[in-house]
């Protein structure tokens, strides 16, 4: 089975966007701030060119295409996981106290969802396609959950997320969320859904690329200086007082509700 003309159009559009994003990442010096994410962009370009060379010569259903696709997917997924970890670190690390708390929360969230992915895919080990689709869905679930947790923590503590970081996170999160949906449909309808699955996967990645291009369209703003932290005793002295008062307010409010 060889690709149809519309697949080539989608491929050309995707490759142009990927090349543009990788070029802008180098031109604007993104590799100095987010080296793993920049590396991921280049890996995507390399994968795209390799994948289409194999598909063009051997077709979708050939063994080389099968192995190339799934091995490269594992590599890309790992690179994406590292890029997400890098993003978490770049946003939260300057705030030492919050980071010390947040990385544990993020690690627990990731461990829980990765365990679920392992457990769910183990239950489908009899059939390789189903096994891979289930594992991939679980991993995408972990990716989007980590990104949401990161955004919620930043929001809660009033930590400013730069537009660049926000758009990169949005792109990664959007792609992962669409893949959860896409893989769920693919698991249900399998072969009948393959063309749609492939189209949705490629299109959602292009949406993510457009978001990243929006982030990279202008030269990157100067790096914000690290926040000046307060002496530890201020937190140690004031926080228990704030908590005590918040607790008292809650108790009084609950009293009002008693008959």
């Amino acid at each position: 089975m060889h690709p149809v003309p519309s697949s080539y159009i989608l491929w050309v559009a995707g490759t142009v966007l990927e090349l543009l994003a990788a070029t802008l990442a180098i031109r604007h010096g993104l590799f100095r701030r987010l080296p793993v994410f920049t590396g991921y962009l280049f890996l995507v370009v390399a994968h795209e060119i390799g994948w289409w060379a194999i598909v063009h010569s051997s077709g979708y259903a050939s063994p080389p295409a099968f192995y190339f696709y799934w091995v490269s997917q594992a590599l890309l997924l790992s690179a994406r996981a590292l890029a997400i970890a890098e993003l978490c670190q770049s946003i939260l690390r300057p705030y030492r106290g919050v980071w010390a708390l947040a990385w544990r929360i993020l690690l627990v969230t990731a461990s829980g969802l990765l365990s679920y992915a392992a457990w769910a895919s183990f239950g489908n080990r009899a059939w390789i396609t189903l096994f891979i689709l289930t594992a991939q869905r679980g991993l995408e679930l972990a990716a989007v959950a980590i990104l949401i947790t990161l955004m919620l923590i930043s929001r809660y503590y009033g930590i400013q997320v730069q537009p660049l970081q926000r758009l990169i996170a949005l792109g990664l999160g959007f792609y992962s969320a669409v893949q959860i949906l896409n893989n769920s449909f693919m698991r249900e309808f399998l072969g009948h859904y393959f063309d749609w699955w492939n189209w949705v996967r490629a299109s959602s990645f292009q949406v993510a690329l457009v978001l990243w291009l929006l982030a990279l369209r202008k030269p990157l703003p100067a790096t914000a200086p690290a926040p000046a932290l307060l002496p530890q005793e201020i937190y140690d002295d004031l926080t228990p007082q704030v908590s005590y008062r918040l607790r008292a307010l809650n108790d009084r409010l609950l009293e009002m509700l008693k008959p």
Partner: protein
Amino acid sequence: MIELVIFAGVAVALLLLMLWAARERAGSQRSPLAAPDLPLEEMFPLHCRHFPQVRQALSGPDDAYLRQRASRKIARRARAERCLVARQFLVGIEEDFSRLNRLGRTLAALSPRVNRKQETERVWLWLRFWISCRLVSLSLRTGRVSVPRLAHLAQLVGHLAAEIETAMGGLETAAGKPLGTSLSA
């Protein structure tokens, strides 16, 4: 098919949550960590400062006086207005709670080390307060919450503001510089 429906729902919910969490906050330019000129006073309770006036408006003797002297229609209208004042005051108290909570979060964000227990407790308190406020507001509408109880709540917030301000003053003296500058750095 059930699994498909569940995961489709989860994916859509996650996507919406992601969009919500990643959206730029309206007041982000005034975030304590982003804007160097945020006055520290904005983190302290404000509405409770109007407590004496509100207490007067909600006082029991006023109510008794109205019942004795005013016509039934006027008394009913006055009670409705008092209820409205009480509800608006509850909104104010909620804002004061948010300000204090924000102070706590800002202190944590700018602190080199945070206490996990304190942070967890604050999230839990915020959730409880939010739910309780909705319930009290509903009870006020149905006339099931007495106004003196609301006045007690206001008094508590007032004490809270005063104590925290005193503590901040003491710490400023100890640190040898105004905390407003440090907090907004």
